[in-house]
């Protein structure tokens, strides 16, 4: 497996609280992505990053913000969690700086429940 970890792996929180999910990679890939996966919707892109401090919105970015201060880390923040943000969140990476291969590899996922 590609060296991608996510933390926490499971979280239960209450509506209105802030939540930060962390994605860490040891593969030196340039691109990092945050997706959410919900039944009937497949994987939907929230935000992605194409370099340190370079981020852009995906198709479901409302209510989420991201930051990438180092190549290895990509943080996803829910400023004020809502029940509609209950989901499984996957981090992914692509485009090795060394090989330019653009297969996308996924982290193990974070199951977030907002009560």
């Amino acid at each position, binding site marked *: 497996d590609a060296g991608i970890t996510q933390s926490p792996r499971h979280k239960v929180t209450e509506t209105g609280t802030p939540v930060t999910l962390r994605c860490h990679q040891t593969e030196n890939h340039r*691109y990092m*992505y945050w*997706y959410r996966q919900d039944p*009937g*919707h*497949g*994987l*939907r*892109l929230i935000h*992605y990053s*194409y370099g340190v401090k370079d981020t*852009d919105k*995906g198709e479901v970015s409302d209510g989420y913000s991201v930051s990438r201060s180092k190549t290895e880390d990509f943080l996803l923040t829910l400023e004020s969690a809502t029940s509609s943000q209950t989901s499984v969140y*996957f981090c*992914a990476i*692509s*485009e090795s700086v060394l090989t330019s291969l*653009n*297969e*996308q*590899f*996924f*982290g*193990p*996922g974070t199951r977030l429940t907002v009560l």
Partner: protein
Amino acid sequence: EDKVVQSPLSLVVHEGDTVTLNCSYEVTNFRSLLWYKQEKKAPTFLFMLTSSGIEKKSGRLSSILDKKELFSILNITATQTGDSAVYLCAVEAASGTYKYIFGTGTRLKVLA
């Protein structure tokens, strides 16, 4: 609007059967098409296709891309219960930066 459509949505077969999963797409600035297998965890990479007509094979799995008709198929021969999973198709679009658009997947169940 970019979109990726997979069919069928679900499929139940018996061990030993051959299955064909379909993925059609409408994407501007197509760069590649990827297939993933997802069991009860993160998607795992199967194939990346960039050129029409060139089959990629890995054991009992194979895939091919048709860039003229804008679709790809994933074939699994001699299915086994371990092939039971959701198979995801994603298209990589290159418009300034790279984005992946996912289909909703095909759920395959292989019965013993």
